[in-house]
């Protein structure tokens, strides 16, 4: 079933929308969650919750790219669980590695605490991504949105892991400089 038909099912409040969504994008969303949580049961629950969130969002929402709409919901749900896992010292290895990498990007500034505006930070990230080459941007998104491993990214783009690592490392430095310039200090 194509995406427009699935969205139409949501609009008509047909519960078939959930089964069709799961049939088409269940596996995809499961992968998104698994990359972050590395836990089958938790990932499955995230995916099930995804359809519920979508059900409550459409309408009025009318996502342009349905797959990414679901992916974002799943990712947010997985992140919520990750926060609990971290609190309990159960952070999955790959997620811990990704967070460790991202900690390099946080610019040390004046030390003055500022209230984080996640919406503005998200917008800043988008601006930053737009300034990267398509290749660097893709690597960043695969790593820090989809939480894919370096080896998976390398395989996806048919390059060596070294190429991916070097690119990500350079992009992280750029991100740090960008955030500093934008005033996103600790």
């Amino acid at each position, binding site marked *: 079933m194509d995406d427009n038909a699935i969205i139409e099912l949501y609009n008509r409040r047909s519960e078939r929308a959930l089964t069709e969504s799961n049939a088409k994008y269940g596996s995809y969303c499961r992968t998104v969650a698994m990359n972050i949580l590395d836990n089958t049961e938790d990932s499955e629950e995230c995916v099930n919750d995804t359809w519920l969130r979508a059900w409550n*969002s459409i309408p*009025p*929402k*009318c*996502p*342009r*790219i349905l797959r*990414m*709409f679901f992916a*974002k919901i799943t*990712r*947010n749900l997985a*992140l919520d669980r990750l926060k609990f896992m*971290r609190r309990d010292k159960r952070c999955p290895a790959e997620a811990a590695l*990704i*967070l*460790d990498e*991202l900690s390099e*990007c*946080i610019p040390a500034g004046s030390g003055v605490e500022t209230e*984080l505006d*996640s*919406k*503005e*930070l*998200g*917008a*800043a*990230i*988008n*601006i930053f*991504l*737009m*300034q990267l*080459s*398509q*290749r*660097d*941007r*893709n690597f960043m*998104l*695969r790593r*820090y*949105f989809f939480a894919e491993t370096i080896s998976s990214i390398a395989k996806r*783009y*048919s*390059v*060596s*892991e*070294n*190429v991916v690592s*070097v*690119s990500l490392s*350079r992009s992280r430095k750029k991100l740090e400089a*960008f*955030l500093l*310039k*934008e005033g996103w*200090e*600790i």
Partner: protein
Amino acid sequence: MTELELFEAFGKANSKLLEESELRPSVRHGIWYMGAAACIALCALSAVVIRSGTGNIAEERITEGTSYDTILHEETGEVLAPETVCEDDDVYPVTQPADEADDVYSVTQPAISYHADTAPQITDDPQYIYMTTVSDNEETGVMFSEGEVIEGEHTGVTSETTVNLTTPAEEAFEDTELPQLTLPKYVTVEPYFVLFAEEHGLEQPFDDIRLAYDFYDTQDNLSLWKTVPADYDDLRPMLDEIGSSPVEGFDRGLMSSSIVSLIFMHKGEEMFRVTVGNDGNAIVNPSELSSYGGCVDFKVSPDMYDRLYQLALTLDGVSVSDMAESPTE
């Protein structure tokens, strides 16, 4: 800010960009890179300068009195000039008038180049060669392909920087099977030179322009990236205006959260995009597929964003009231 908050912020990435990241490199992309090692090897063999920036101009006949930094024979790969590292004021004397020349050469005009203090490294992937370069006393890594910088640190690289491959090709490419050398046949110019195509007597290296604008659904931060076909004539006055004010030093001045992009396509491939922010800054960002040089920043009038945004809305047939009522569509 914590690393978790930063990770969370990536969740607000533009859906269109996310979708793009799902696409695997095309076959054409792969083939394009296949000549990379070969060309680098050729240059290494000749201990010649690898030039980048404005790139090759294929099938252009050597013009008497014109200076070029490198000249490669299209078929044999023979290097005519120069034999050693060029200085800025090096001029290769071309003595044969174009009309009398039997052979066609690829030439590289004086442009940005890079200096490498270390031997080129072969990556696991033979499509690339990786070098540590020095520019402005800062070490950076640069990927070379087909004699062009296809990926690397353009920021801070100046026109004085040069690359000198000193490692013999036999050593550098010991275990690499080199494909037969084929030089690319595409027209290439500095991105913003496109804006002055007529002035430079160059053909437009694009056949399609898309005007892209985005806005956010404030309720759930769902970003939408709408793209509409645009006409070059409509854009020309604004492009001229943008292109007239390049900022030296690759300052990466675009820091605005609201942007409009002009995407220049050639045969379905994005060649580069001009992105204008509502903060009076603009940036030309070349696609990795294009052979253009690095990013170039521009200062534009504060209302440039509004003008382009309004044009996008007009072309898209969207009124402001429509957006307010239905921001997701």
